[in-house]
């Protein structure tokens, strides 16, 4: 069973005024079968956590450790992390002009699975996954994320999640910018991914509304670059009612 273990993680980002520490000692363990929600106000460092775990070059880990089933994630390149079973659904998926979605998906699946999927079963697999996410098949021939609406991009992130079936998925504000229908479709996709019980999910969000579709086992409040409180799903309700004021000293709603 997969376990992602984050210990005392400190992360800095380079700014014009020198390195600025954003994560100040994060401790978190996500096991297969568990869904963790990280909630926090804007600027608390939630997204930095996801990018640092995925290996974005902009973020420098200054101390601490991240392991996946005991293997040192921080020693791996970005693509090695993905092949080891980590997946980051991005808040702002990147456009790659001239590279078709179908070519991209197949190249990624080949890399992650270690061999090219058989063409016939692959085509079926992609079609089925697209249809579950209510994605028009015509998107397969469009350039990766190019000209996609916010909702279309998020659906495609979950499509990749479904096809690459990682051990641990980090969803970075996947709910942002989604209308009610799209939120349902995307949440259903994540729930299908969870259903096996063999995968772990780390859901990063500002608002509680996605947690009505995807039930977390644990809720963590993120503020000032670390986890300041942890609890069960009931903690989300408290945050919805009270906002983050208790943690930040300023009014910021967590409810919708």
């Amino acid at each position, binding site marked *: 069973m997969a376990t992602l273990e984050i210990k005392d993680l400190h992360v800095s980002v380079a700014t014009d005024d020198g390195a600025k520490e954003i994560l100040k000692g994060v401790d978190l363990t996500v096991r297969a079968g568990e869904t963790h929600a990280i909630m926090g106000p804007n600027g608390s460092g939630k997204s930095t956590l996801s990018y640092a775990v995925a290996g974005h070059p902009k973020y420098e880990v200054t101390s601490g450790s991240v392991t996946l089933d005991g293997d040192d994630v921080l020693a791996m390149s970005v693509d090695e992390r993905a092949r080891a079973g980590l997946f980051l659904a991005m808040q702002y998926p990147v456009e*790659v002009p001239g590279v078709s979605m179908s070519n991209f998906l197949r190249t990624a699946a080949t890399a992650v699975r270690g061999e090219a999927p058989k063409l016939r079963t692959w085509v079926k697999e992609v079609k089925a996954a697209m249809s579950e996410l209510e994605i028009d098949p015509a998107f397969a021939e469009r350039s990766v994320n190019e000209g996609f609406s916010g909702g279309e991009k998020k659906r495609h992130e979950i499509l990749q999640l479904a096809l690459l079936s990682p051990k641990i998925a980090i969803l970075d504000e996947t709910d942002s910018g989604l209308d009610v229908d799209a939120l349902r479709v995307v949440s259903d996709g994540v729930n299908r991914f969870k259903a096996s019980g063999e995968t772990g999910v780390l859901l990063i969000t500002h608002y509680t509304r996605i947690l009505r579709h995807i039930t977390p086992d644990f809720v963590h409040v993120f503020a000032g670059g670390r986890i300041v409180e942890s609890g069960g799903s009931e903690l989300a309700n408290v945050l919805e009612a009270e906002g983050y004021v208790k943690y930040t000293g300023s009014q910021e709603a967590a409810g919708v």
Partner: protein
Amino acid sequence: MTAAVEKQSHSHGAVVPESSRAEWFTSFDVNAFEVPSGREEIWRFTPMKRLAGLHTGVEATGSATVEVDAPAEVTVETVERGDSRLGAAGVPADRVAAQAFSSFTAATVLTVAKETKASAPVLVTVTGPGAGQVAYGHLQVRAERFAEAVVVLDHRGSGVYADNVEFVLADGAKLTVVSIQDWADDAVHVSAQHASIGRDALLRHTVVTLGGDLVRVSPTAAFADKGAEVELNGLYFADAGQHFEHRTFVDHSQANCTSNVVYKGALQGNDAHTVWIGDVLIRAAAEGTQTYELNRNLLLTDGARADSVPNLEIETGEIAGAGHASATGRFDDEQLFYLQARGIPEDQARRLVVRGFFHELLMKIQVPEVRERLEAAIEAELEAVGV
């Protein structure tokens, strides 16, 4: 006399030359041009020392070999200087083009008869005169009324070569041209390509520059009548030390014509240098003109340099649309991160991005053999630096 002109920016980022493109000096006679010093506007990007004397009157010491593989519907002639048809598509606008026009000994003329569609692409292979040799050449492609053809010009080999290439499109003709410069590392090639486009005719012109020490191609499109359309496309891949220069000019002198210019280049290695100058002139009579030009450059390594200058002159307000865009950038780290975050190894991710960058242009090349060859050439270029 090609006057040196200073350029200044206007508010949209394009440059309006002080001397209008409409007033450029042209002549078939090399002696009508002064020897350029390299400081002139049209020469300022070109490393003159590497021109091997093409601009100072070097005489031919050899000749290029021209082989034509054409379907039966296309007439192929070799003609002497002085054939009255030569020069119909345009007049040299710089000293090297005029030198080539004044110096060639024989010209190749290809004619597609009226209302005829060539059943296969015409392949013209031009092989340079050999290392250390200088040659001049001339080629004219004539598409008569409602004729249709695809012509591939394949330049290869060694040596120094300057030429004029003409495309004469009569009313309703449709001509697709791909000019490939895949020279050996020593080669110097300066090519002026002139198109005269008749009423409702369509020219699709694509320049592909992959090899040579110095390659300078200047495609000029002029409309002879209304309703015509031209696409000027270009794709180039410059390695260390190579200088590839492309200077496009679309002369809108007729009403209701359309032009679209798309040039894209990738550069890698020390002192790889590319230049794109995109001149568009919309004259007072050219009402209803629609024009757009775009240049994009992708710097794959440090030490490479891409110059990009769109020039748009508009002499009438009654146009349908005119625009331009130019951008030069390094590899987009966010694109690489995204692809790698899906498990794709870095080298493969880089290749995907470069292939994607050229994809739009490659799809415009409708000759499958040529497209496949170019895809393979791009792969080989990427292979070479281990990108």
